[in-house]
């Protein structure tokens, strides 16, 4: 299956890429998607927003073929 993985804002700078196409035969959850996409560069931050097909999800959520996973940094300033 193929998963599109997107990194936004400061995460894009930290992992050094905006998007990754992940091809795998494994069944993956969101955390494992991160590990396969950029785990060698950065472990999954504790403070992070994750979405699956534009729906806010937790790191345990399982992905399917064709899904889009996105990671966003938390924002608190004001």
């Amino acid at each position, binding site marked *: 299956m193929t998963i599109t993985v997107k990194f936004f804002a400061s995460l894009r700078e930290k992992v050094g890429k905006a998007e990754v196409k992940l091809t795998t035969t494994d069944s993956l959850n969101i955390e494992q998607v991160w590990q396969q996409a950029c785990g060698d560069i950065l472990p999954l931050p504790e403070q992070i927003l994750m979405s699956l097909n534009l729906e*806010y999800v937790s790191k345990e959520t399982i992905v399917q073929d064709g899904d889009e996973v996105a990671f966003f940094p938390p924002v608190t300033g004001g």
Partner: protein
Amino acid sequence: MFINKNNDVVSWFFKDNQQQKLQQATVLIIGLGGLGSPVALYLARAGIGQLVLVDFDKVDLSNLQRQIIHNTQQISKEKVISAQDTLHAINPNITITPISEKLDKNALIEQMAQVDVVVDCSDNFATRFIINEASVKTKTPLVSGAALRFQGQISVFLPQRPNSPCYHCLYPEVNMEETTCSQNGVIAPLVGIIGSLQASEVIKVLLDIDTTLCGKLMLFNAYNMQWKTLQLAKDPACLICQTNS
């Protein structure tokens, strides 16, 4: 509300009963910085009858790049007093209650019990979590905005609705790294954009317009000019929702 010389209501957009609703409303604004400035300015101009302003800080020259309710004449003044002066110069017909102190959870609960909407314009997670808890406990609608560098976000939480998520459903209370605008910077117009959207959502909540961002998180990247709207469901394991349902 504003009246022109012919005694007509200047705000042509709202029907009379809606403008009256706004005039009778009380809104609590927490933080009179980058976000709180446009929120307060627009709500005062919209004719919200009562504004309660909370901020313990004083105006500093370094604030003026983005905190558009204050000016150089107001440096060293308490922010809530500076904001009150600006707002009363715009609309003398509104009642403003300035609170120049850091409110703890109990004090926030006390304040929220007396208002129709609370607007979170604070700049740190610790305050945001306390505001959320008080909002859930008192079932006070919460309009939450945040901005940093080129990234902004906004959502609306309606704890009076059983299915509404809360801020804690979005951010579980783990060791959140504090990233404030004063330490990390923000492109000044971004707080204006997010704050203006917060004011718009407050007006919609007050007028029972059912197209708010409740159940959604809107993310804005000013660098790429990209908007993303995520669906945000209530977390069944959320401790704040569970404790206060």
